[in-house]
């Protein structure tokens, strides 16, 4: 079946043939994602300025309510809407193919939007002060769970559209041969997503019915186990999507070629196979599972998923080094690094994302996920410190970097305020590194996460953490401020590009 050719345009820069419906869906998912990022970012700053006890911006009710909303707006809405855009890009655009079943893509968008809106409204109404983890028996309004379910179903449909597009591209001959690495990585993300989101369904459907008063509550530990099969494994969607974006950014910024496709691809397969079991590290200090079980599972079955990250950690820097050396930057060991395009926000985002994710996020993740060390990390600020390094400094920054290419390629507009775009990744990346590090430092003293007042001054047994922690939290606040400025710049640049950016004529 020949796709109608008038629905395609050819990108003058990349030569990709871009299918109209794919383009529209990428645009709308990406814009929605950025709106959520803006909202979540403003909230994030307010939260940080509350945890900075000297400022203590919000009151307790508002803090917990907005913390619930921040988790949802960021980890769920921003990240997953953007990933939908990536899935459509990595299939239809990269393969120069038609987007199969566009109406299903629209359904994906609608379900996610409606679901997300229901959740946000329920939280803002004060019906769901339960954090995004919504551990039973804390109960939210049943519509909250319904919203999550709709959102998840939407995301599953996005994965279905992705696979349908890949299959159509192959059967209709739009693409011949093996899948490009970026598409392969996106496919790994989509496979993990389907597994993960079905855990979400298993846990949220009974919880929804329970909140509606129709069935008894499920066991708390069962909830926690299955919830994290969803909540943690879905972080691996982010990792896969981010690594795929890293390869893409390497190619777009310096023209890098994967060193060894076999190795890169095998690493993605390792993610698919071994990441899920590791989710149990959220239950290391829980009853219900034996220590033998915990050590085996959180050992990622011989840490093979960690091996995958180690492989990418070599393969991406090595590929960009090779590409830059080919450009003639061969003096000494580091001329290539000096001459790298540091003023290109795609490049600086790639480098900072690699460092933030790998060194700050990845290493602390493996360490905190150890059976014994988890005892001194569980639920204190070490944990949000760790994941703001991974999913914020890593994934979010990588997505920001790719946006600077999506804007001209898909929205056909020149990036507005190019001078600001140059510094944006530095502000966001370095701000979030300071923020996460200071958080982890404070966590080392036992300052708990999700706490409006670590000192518990209204309790009979107030706690004093001492001046070192106060300073750490101040540094955390300053990092948050810098990061939030970087984040706001990103949103401003993206929106300004859409509104006033110079049109690129094909």
């Amino acid at each position: 079946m020949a796709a109608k050719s008038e629905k395609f345009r050819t990108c003058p820069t990349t030569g990709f043939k871009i299918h109209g419906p794919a383009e529209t869906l990428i645009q709308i998912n990406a814009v929605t994602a950025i709106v959520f990022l803006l909202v979540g970012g403003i909230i994030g700053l307010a939260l940080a300025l509350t945890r900075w006890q000297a400022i203590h911006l919000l009151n307790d009710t508002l803090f917990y309510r907005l913390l619930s909303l921040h988790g949802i707006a960021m980890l769920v809405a921003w990240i997953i809407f953007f990933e939908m855009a990536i899935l459509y890009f990595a299939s239809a655009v990269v393969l120069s193919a038609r987007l199969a079943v566009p109406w299903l893509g629209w359904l994906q968008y609608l379900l996610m939007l409606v679901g997300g809106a229901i959740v946000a409204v329920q939280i803002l109404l004060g019906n769901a002060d339960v954090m995004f983890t919504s551990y039973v028996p804390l109960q939210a309004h049943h519509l909250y769970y319904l919203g999550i379910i709709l959102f998840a179903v939407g995301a599953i449909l996005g994965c279905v559209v992705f696979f349908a597009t890949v299959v159509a591209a192959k059967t209709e001959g739009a693409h011949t041969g093996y899948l490009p690495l970026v598409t392969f990585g996106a496919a790994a993300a989509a496979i993990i997503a389907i597994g993960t989101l079905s855990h979400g369904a298993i846990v949220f459907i009974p919880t929804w019915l329970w909140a509606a008063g129709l069935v008894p509550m499920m066991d708390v530990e069962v909830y926690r186990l299955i919830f994290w099969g969803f909540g943690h494994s879905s972080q691996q969607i982010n990792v896969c999507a981010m690594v795929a974006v890293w390869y893409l950014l390497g190619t777009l910024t310096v023209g890098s070629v994967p060193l060894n496709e076999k190795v890169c691809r095998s690493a993605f397969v390792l993610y698919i196979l071994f990441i899920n079991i590791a989710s149990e590290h959220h239950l290391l200090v829980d009853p219900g599972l034996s220590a033998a079980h915990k050590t085996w599972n959180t050992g990622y079955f011989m840490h093979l998923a960690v091996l995958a990250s180690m492989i990418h950690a070599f393969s991406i820097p090595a590929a960009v080094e090779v590409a830059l050396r080919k450009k003639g930057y061969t003096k000494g060991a580091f001329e290539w690094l000096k001459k790298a395009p540091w003023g290109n926000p795609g490049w600086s985002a790639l480098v900072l994302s690699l460092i933030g994710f790998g060194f700050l996020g990845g290493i602390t993740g493996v360490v905190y996920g150890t059976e014994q060390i988890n005892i001194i990390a569980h639920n204190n600020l070490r944990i949000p410190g760790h994941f703001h390094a991974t999913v914020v400094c890593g994934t979010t920054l990588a997505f920001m970097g790719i946006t600077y290419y999506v804007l001209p390629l898909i929205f056909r507009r020149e990036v507005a305020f190019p001078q600001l775009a140059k510094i944006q990744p530095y502000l966001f990346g370095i701000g979030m590194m300071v923020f996460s590090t200071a958080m982890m430092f404070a966590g080392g003293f036992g300052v708990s996460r999700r706490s409006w007042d670590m000192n518990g001054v209204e309790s009979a047994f107030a706690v004093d953490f001492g001046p070192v922690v106060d300073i750490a939290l101040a540094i955390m606040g300053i990092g948050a401020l810098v990061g939030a400025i970087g984040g706001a710049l990103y949103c401003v640049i993206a929106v300004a590009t859409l509104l006033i950016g110079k049109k690129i004529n094909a």
Partner: protein
Amino acid sequence: MSVTAPQPGFFDQPLHKEEKIWIALAFVWCIFITVAMPWWHIAGNQNSSSEFYKISGEHFSTIVDDFIAKNKTGEEAGIPVVSPPPGSDIFLRGQQWAWDPILDLKVNETYRLHLSSIDVLHGMSIHPINMNFEAVPGWDYVLTITPTTSGDFRIICNEFCGVDHHNMIGKIIVK
């Protein structure tokens, strides 16, 4: 290019030497940290416990009330202080938003601490030693503990449990 199909036969392309060395080293390291987990479990003496039982909130509460009645030696801020004999089973109950009782323990003696919650999830974070365990409704989590330093310890709730979560702070005394 990462956006074009790889050359046919890419699967047979040999690895560069550096890449081989890196992967080998990384693999050895992964095996090492994998082995280290059970090794630390056996060699170290600070593990999360594998002993737990299912128990209803009401049942746990009657046991705790009993325990308090038998061992009560005082009261602080309206919360009973108990001084149980060394080696015995001791109990800590979490509920919105307090921990009770206050445990008065002897240094270098071993106790079997039963931890649970009778409403929502709570988290037991012992300050200032920063040790953290979950208090889960429906589950009696048995931790064998030996306090090795004397002093006043706080139990900070570190699992979000409602609007007064940050004020849920209890106490352990070690003499």
